[in-house]
Structures are given as structure tokens and as C-alpha cells.
């Protein structure tokens, strides 16, 4: 076996004008999460426990788009979703539409372990949370002033985008300042909030696991489900590898991206990095996304075809890296 390996991400698609102090904050959080994971792995905590632990940390910190700090729906509320998968038997759990559960990833794990199902959503999931006694808070807890501001900008950007499409030459009325060449999910990159957090781990026993959590797309319709809770799209783990994706949900779902990495490894015999590169280069068409992955042999890899991805990775032989840009 190749020892343990871990990767974390805080979302793909980053504003190139992101202020330096924000970039620093992000790198510090990623580093802190990696260190947490590294100690856990050095104490032989199983992969499934490590991914949950790290994603809980990311959900609790308001910096990224999950748990507290989640992007807001068009109604200004928070609806969170998450999924987790344990490679050895491909057990999985997922949740969507959470409004009061402090740590969605832990509820996803409980769905996997304490319910006869794989996926629970909305009020059914909230009821299950109460039955299980997980920590619940008011929806306001998850809402940050920053995201309230972002929602307002997103609504304005959508309005401008809509105006821009009227074929009467309304260019003069379009706020040229908001006209950024970079868009993701239909929003200018300055307004788009990278969608997700995730963690993939292979432990010393060669067991892989993956977990992904998000507040979803800024200004999304109430009830919108993205790729993060969908097994095979946002999250996947099997005997060979663990994968967590982030970016444009539609592109990730159409590509069944997380499963794709594992499928080309299994059916085409590609190595981890080859598989990641293959999927990012050929499976996304016009879609923008990124992913992190580990293999049972202790390798770690990541790839993205958009402008930056908040990420960090480490392996047992001492390699460690945190980054945002190419």
C-alpha cells in the first residue's frame, strides 16, 4: 500500500480579482483542514471518519459555501445539501434541502448508517435530523452579511444579463462595469460563489472515501438540487478511488463526473492523474468544473478547467500543497 493521502477543496471557479487577504484566509483554512486530516490519519482514523471530520470543519467555518456561509436561494434563505460515500462497500448517504441542520455531512452519514435509505430531503430529512438528535439551529445562523450582499448583486446581474439578451442594441443601458468576460453558472465571476466544499481520503488500509457539502448556487430557485448530493456526480468512492467535484452543477451531472473518474480507471485501466485529466479535458464540453481525487495506492490528484480552485492535498510521505490558481 502507498500510505494515506488526503485532498480538500473549497470550490472551483474563483474571481481573479479576489483580494489578497481573502486568498490568504482561504489558504489558512485549507491548511488547517489538511493538518486536522493528517493527524487523524496518523492516528489511524478510517477514511470515512476523516472525510466527515474535515467537511464538518469546512461547514462550520463561514468562509466557503457550505453550512454557515452557504449561498442563498432566490428567497434569501439557505438550503444545504451533502453526500458521503465509503469506498469498500460503496455505502452512501445524501441529504438535500436542509435548513436547520448545523452539519449536513453528518446527517448524510446518518442516512447511510441509520436509515434504510440512501437519500433524504427537505422536511423528511429535517424530521430525521430531529429523530437522530443532531444539532439544529435557526436558518439565520447560516446566513452571512456577505452572502446577503452577494445575493443582491446576483439578482442585479441576472437582470442585466436579461437586458443584454434583448436584441435591440441596449448595450448602452447595460452596466458595463459588471460585464466581466468570466462567467460561471450564468453569473459574473465576481458574484458567483464557488459552490462547494469536499474532502477525499485514502487511509493506511487503502480504503477510500469521499464527502461533498454545499449551500448550492447563489440565487437558485427554492428546491433546486445540484450535483453535490448526487452519488456519481458530485461524490463517488469505490475500491479504487474517492472523488469530490465542484463547479457548474449541470455540467457535473451530465458528465456524471465523479463516477467517470472511477469508471475510466476501472474500465480503461487509467492511473489516477490520467483519469482526472481525461475527465476534465474531455467530459465537460463547455462546462466549468474541478475535482479532487485519491486512489487506493495512496496517490492524490486534482484537476479543473475553470479559473482557479481552492484546494489542498497531502500524502503520507510528507508532500503537502495548498493552492488557488493553476
Amino acid at each position, binding site marked *: 500500500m502507498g500510505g494515506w493521502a488526503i485532498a480538500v477543496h473549497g470550490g472551483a471557479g474563483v474571481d481573479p480579482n479576489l483580494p489578497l487577504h481573502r486568498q490568504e484566509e482561504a489558504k489558512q483554512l485549507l491548511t488547517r483542514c489538511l493538518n486536522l486530516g493528517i493527524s487523524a490519519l496518523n492516528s489511524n482514523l478510517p477514511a470515512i471518519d476523516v472525510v466527515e471530520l474535515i467537511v464538518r470543519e469546512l461547514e462550520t467555518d463561514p468562509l466557503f459555501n457550505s453550512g454557515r456561509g452557504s449561498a442563498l436561494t432566490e428567497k434569501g434563505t439557505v438550503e444545504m445539501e451533502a453526500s458521503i460515500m465509503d469506498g469498500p462497500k460503496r*455505502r452512501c448517504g445524501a441529504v438535500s434541502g436542509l435548513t436547520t441542520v448545523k452539519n449536513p455531512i453528518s446527517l448524510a452519514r446518518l442516512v447511510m448508517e441509520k436509515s434504510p435509505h440512501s437519500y433524504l430531503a427537505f422536511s423528511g430529512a429535517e424530521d430525521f435530523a430531529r429523530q437522530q438528535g443532531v444539532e439544529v439551529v435557526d436558518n439565520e445562523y447560516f446566513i452571512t452579511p456577505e452572502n446577503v450582499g452577494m445575493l443582491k448583486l446576483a439578482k442585479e446581474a441576472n437582470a442585466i444579463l436579461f437586458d443584454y439578451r434583448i436584441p435591440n442594441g441596449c448595450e448602452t443601458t447595460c452596466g458595463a462595469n459588471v460585464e466581466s468576460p468570466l462567467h460561471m*453558472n450564468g453569473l459574473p465571476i465576481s458574484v458567483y460563489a464557488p459552490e462547494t466544499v469536499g474532502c477525499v481520503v485514502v487511509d493506511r488500509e487503502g480504503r477510500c472515501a469521499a464527502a461533498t457539502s454545499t449551500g448550492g448556487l447563489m440565487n437558485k430557485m427554492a428546491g433546486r438540487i445540484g450535483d453535490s448530493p448526487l452519488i456519481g456526480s458530485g461524490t463517488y468512492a469505490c475500491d479504487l478511488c474517492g472523488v469530490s467535484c465542484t463547479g457548474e452543477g449541470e455540467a457535473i451531472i451530465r458528465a*456524471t463526473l465523479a463516477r467517470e473518474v472511477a469508471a475510466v480507471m476501472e474500465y480503461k485501466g487509467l492511473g489516477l492523474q490520467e483519469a482526472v485529466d481525461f475527465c476534465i479535458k474531455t467530459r465537460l464540453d463547455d462546462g466549468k468544473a474541478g475535482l479532487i481525487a485519491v486512489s487506493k495506492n495512496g496517490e492524490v490528484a486534482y484537476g479543473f478547467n475553470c479559473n482557479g480552485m481552492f484546494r489542498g492535498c497531502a500524502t503520507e510521505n510528507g508532500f503537502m500543497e495548498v493552492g488557488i490558481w493553476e
Partner: protein
Amino acid sequence: MGWAIAVHGGAGDISRSLPHDRRQPREEAIRHCLQIGVEALQSNSPPLDVVELVVRELENIPHFNAGRGSVLTSEGTVEMEASIMDGNTMRCGAVSGLTTVVNAVSLARLVMEKTPHIYLAFDGAEQFAREQGVEIVDSSHFITPENVERLKLAKEANRVQIDYNAQPIQNDTKKEKPCANGDSQIGTVGCVAVDSNGNLASATSTGGLVNKMAGRIGDTPVIGAGTYANELCAVSATGKGESIIRGTVARDVAALMEFKGLSLKEAADCVVHERTPKGTVGLIAVSAAGEVVMSFNTTGMFRGCATEDGYSEVAIWSDAQVE
């Protein structure tokens, strides 16, 4: 080459001693829906329209677990879900947690075509339905007496299970509870179609698992699990949702064809017989070349298929009856 279509009304532990009055209406319904699809393909309807049309018809028929006739949640309510996918563009749409929408598959298509999203659920989906003006009814419309009975039996079975664990009963016949209709595990309806130009589409719809927890989502609306279509094939799966999700069943058929060069039949058989536990999965699939396959590892699967060269079949168990 030529068009091909397949339809299913659910895979599961369908007893061979299913009474005639429970069997015949379903066979007839499959035959009827297949015919609708065939006529649409013969009039050059795009496969995406064909699968929607056929699944709408299946949803409206109360004998299957979708739309009217959906199984009930543990609370005695109906929560319906569906998805649809277009092979050429790989655009897709999905819905879950519907309680008043008459045709879930059509709402899934509207999500695909009229929103920037792929998947809407519960209140948000119901609200979207009203904005789109689709047909909605009181949720009692979907509830049939058979399903009320199924729920009752399922709850009793759970109670028997608990009793059995508490006091060892040497009575094995208690476990073999006589299913009132021998098909309490029936899940899902679906349709896959390909036209003579190799355009593919798939759609699946369901009420889910009998006695499921409220809010439970199965494989049906999960793209890659219950439904998938690309340029190679279109697949619709049925059976135990949790196994289909874990096995990314619909996607895997296509992946085996693409990455291992398997034929449609080899890929379907591999997924069903080698990669998923026995008794959990069935699927229908068509390829761009006009082939069709219907494969299952359960006792039976209500199904039918037809191809342009005149072949057609409607069957339940594994000895096919050629029509």
C-alpha cells in the same frame, strides 16, 4: 438500423402465481403504451417526445407505481419523482417530492427546458409546477385502494419483523407473508427510445418505495442511476433504489460500452448479473444502432419492446412471449 423502443413497469419479486386479474391488466397496459410509442416513432416523433409521451401514459395508469397508483410513504402520502434525458445534447431534467402534479415526467422536462437548473424538488418543484401551469390535482387522486393495502401489509411486516427478533418463533411461514398482490416491491416505470438516425432518449418515473420515509429519494431522479442517455445508448433502471444508486446502473451500461467496447447486451448483462446484487435490479436499454435489451436479476420485470423490423415482445418473467 431503424427505430427501437422499450418500456417497463417495474422489476421485482413478481410471483409466478400472480392472479390473472393482477397480471392481465398490466400486460395489456404495457402493450398499449408500447403501441403508443411505436406509432409516435413511426410518425417521426423525436425520441425525447416519445419517451415523455409513453411515460405520461404509464403514469396515468393506476396499475403501476408511478403517478396514479404510486406506492405510499410511511405517512400514507404520495411523493413522486421522475427524470428524463436527451442523448444528443445530454440535457436532463429531474423532479422529486411531487404531491399534486399529474405527470411528473413532464415537469422534469420543463425543469430541463425552462430553468437554468436540472433538478427541482418538494415545495420548490410544486411551486414551479404552478408557475408553469401544468395539470395539478388533489393528492388523493394518486392513491389507490391497492396501495393503501400494500402500505398496511408493509407496516405489519415490519411489526412482525420486530416481533420475530424479540421472541424467536419457530414459524418460518411467518416470514413468507402472503403478499396480497405478490408485488409489494414493484418500483418505477420507464421508457427508452431511439429513432432511425440514432437519436436516443430515456425517461423514468416512480412513486418510490412502499412505506418509505417521507423525503426519501430513490434512484429514479438521479441521473446516472435510474436514467441515462448519451450518444451510445439510453437506459432506464428499476428495482431497489439504494442498489441502483450505489451501482450507478444506468451510467455503467453506457460506460462499459464506451470504455470496454462491450455491446449493448453484454454491457446490460454485466451490470445486472455481475455488478449488482441478485434480486435488486432490472433495466431496459436501446443503442444508437437500433438494438434493444431488457435485463433483470429479479424474479420478473413488466416489460415490452419493439423494433422497426417488426419484432415485438411483452413479458413478465424470463421466458419471453413473442407477440
